[in-house]
């Protein structure tokens, strides 16, 4: 799960990381009110769940109140990577002496949380990782001790010479780690972390992602979720025990198992078609799940054919067939469907489906070819 910058800033503040004052605004009028009492310069920042906002023109410095309002007019309603800007953050501008990067991520290889810092702040860290990987300092944190004082200090010393700045930065690293663990984050980034002309360190932009598996114990984080249209569908599917992701193609797929679902999408592509979605119905052949899955699939108007690909292991193909037959009685559709059942009790399942007149096949490859053929009719 992702959150907006303004939400990440709120979390940073709660944990004592210094963040400049800001105000979230949904309209030009709200921006006018927000800058009314401000004397200094401000920054107007688009709040969308996409990276590269600055490059897209969604972050602007304003020297005067009227300039702030002008920027807000342009930014509100702007499209950034497919997201419409519906709100902007108005923040105090800071006199930046130098920018740094600080981030925490889960690392698959060390099986730990890694602290990453770099003196190359303010740019996308992925770029630095590609062009100058030696400029990123990585430090795996022992989960049993956390980030100890001396560790945080020694890392900060690689970025700063002045001990006062070292202490400020070290404290921010430790606070960031504390909130990372407490909120079940999978990414917590301050980019940039800046030193101002008065030698104070501030976090002036933040990004946080959270572990979907841990949301059950993070009600405050879950309450911050602001899903877009596609994500609403994904969340709805998840609540029904399905895993669904919409794509741009024309062949809807319903599969049991995530790996097999991905392999099914790939196979459609291999034979010249394009998958309309990823859909894993999981290990159950519960008829209601099949009905829900078909409803979600067919709500996508681009779908010209449906490929059902089931490999029965513990799941029995005759149970799946029963679910399908029930589902097709409830759902009226003229979208052609091809059914592939293999594995446990496939013969019985296929015989049941054949009675309904739906085309059945034995292998994945045949199913993909047939679905593509049907979608082109």
């Amino acid at each position, binding site marked *: 799960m992702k959150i907006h910058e303004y939400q990440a800033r709120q979390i940073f503040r709660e944990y004592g990381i210094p963040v400049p004052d800001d105000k979230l605004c949904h309209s030009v009028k709200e921006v006018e009110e927000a800058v009314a009492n401000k004397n200094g310069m401000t920054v107007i920042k688009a709040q969308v769940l996409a990276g590269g906002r600055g490059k897209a023109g969604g972050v602007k410095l304003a020297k005067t109140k009227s300039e702030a309002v002008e920027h807000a007019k342009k930014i509100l309603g702007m499209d950034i990577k497919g997201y419409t800007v519906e709100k902007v953050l108005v923040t105090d501008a800071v006199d930046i002496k130098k920018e740094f990067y600080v981030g925490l991520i*889960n690392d*698959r*290889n060390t*099986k*730990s*949380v890694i602290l990453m810092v770099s003196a190359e702040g303010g740019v996308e860290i*992925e770029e630095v990782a590609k062009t100058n990987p030696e400029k990123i300092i990585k430090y795996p944190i*022992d*989960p*049993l001790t956390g980030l100890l004082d001396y560790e945080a200090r020694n890392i900060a010393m690689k970025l700063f010479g002045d001990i006062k700045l070292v202490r400020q930065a070290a404290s921010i690293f430790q606070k960031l780690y504390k909130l990372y*663990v407490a909120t*079940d984050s*999978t990414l917590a980034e301050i980019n940039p972390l800046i030193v101002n002309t008065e030698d104070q360190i501030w976090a002036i932009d933040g990004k946080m992602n959270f*572990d*979907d*598996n*841990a949301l*059950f*114990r993070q009600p405050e984080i879950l309450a911050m979720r602001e899903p877009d249209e596609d994500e609403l569908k994904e969340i709805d599917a998840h609540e029904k025990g399905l*895993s669904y*992701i919409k*794509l741009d193609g024309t062949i809807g797929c319903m*599969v*049991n*198992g*995530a*790996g*097999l*679902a*991905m*392999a099914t*999408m*790939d*196979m*459609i*592509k*291999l034979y010249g078609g394009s*998958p309309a979605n*990823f859909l*894993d119905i999981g*290990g159950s052949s519960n008829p209601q799940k099949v009905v829900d899955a078909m409803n979600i699939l067919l709500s996508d108007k681009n779908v010209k054919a449906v490929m059902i690909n089931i*490999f*029965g*292991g*513990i799941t029995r193909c005759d149970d799946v067939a029963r679910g399908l037959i029930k589902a097709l009685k409830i759902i009226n559709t003229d979208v052609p469907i091809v059914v592939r059942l*293999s*594995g*446990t009790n496939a013969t019985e399942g296929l015989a049941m489906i054949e009675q309904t007149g739906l085309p059945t096949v034995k*292998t*994945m*490859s045949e199913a993909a070819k047939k679905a593509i053929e049907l979608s082109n009719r």
Partner: protein
Amino acid sequence: MSILINKNTKLVVQGITGRDGGFHASKMKEYGTQVVAGVSPGKEGETVNGIPVFNSVENAVKATGANTSVIFVPAAFAADAILEASAAGIDLVIAISEGVPVNDMIRVMPILKRNKTKLIGPNCPGLITPGESLVGILPGTIFKKGNVGLMSRSGTLTYEVVNMLTESNLGQTTCVGIGGDPVAGLYYLDLLEMFENDPDTEAVVLIGEIGGDAEEQAARFITEKMSKPVVAFIAGQTAPSGKRMGHAGAIISSGSGTAAEKIAAFDKAGVPVAKEPSEIPLLLKEKLIKIHA
């Protein structure tokens, strides 16, 4: 021979009185696995399909000599169950539970390392040494004893491939489902080494997917350390960036972890990558003919 489990494996089922735990305990026993005990706090003295239930893993180990554990408890309690098994001296823990928070797994790892406990999973279907022992939720009937080792991040895709192998008369030494989570126990490098050292394994199938760079590491390991042939398949070539494809670990983040990168790494290592699952038995047979020629 085989790796990790065999006919001498003595299994304890944690969460045996739950729906899944009970069902699969019976299935494993039916397959021939020595299921010696179950654990469910407060239910010591009961039995599930003839399997004695204990209050703790410690009690189960003392009474039965169990050396392997399989975990079916809900995700929120899985980390604790893994640590309980490790503390009780279990050598190999297989966590089936899906949806375990990754921070829980990160905290578990250093303790397992200290206790020298091997872990498979979480969010995995388990493993099988055909004809000897099945631990997990794999459908036993599709497997066949033979000389191919298999490791996979997937469940049903593995069954699909195994079914094709068995139909092509390519039996298996051991098949391991390593699970779909980003932070997991034994992974490709550990298992490749085990298969390399297993005298009965002649060739290995590796089924990978998008996310992380473990396949790239496996490719390097194969080049440097493996004498036995490996055939690979990678799922997720059509997966979009930034979306979690069912498995928590199956995500392309910031453009890395793509199928294309993984396939390129295997190409470079001389590991054939099947275009579709049905090509795997053909590629394996080509490799095996060369060995036996």
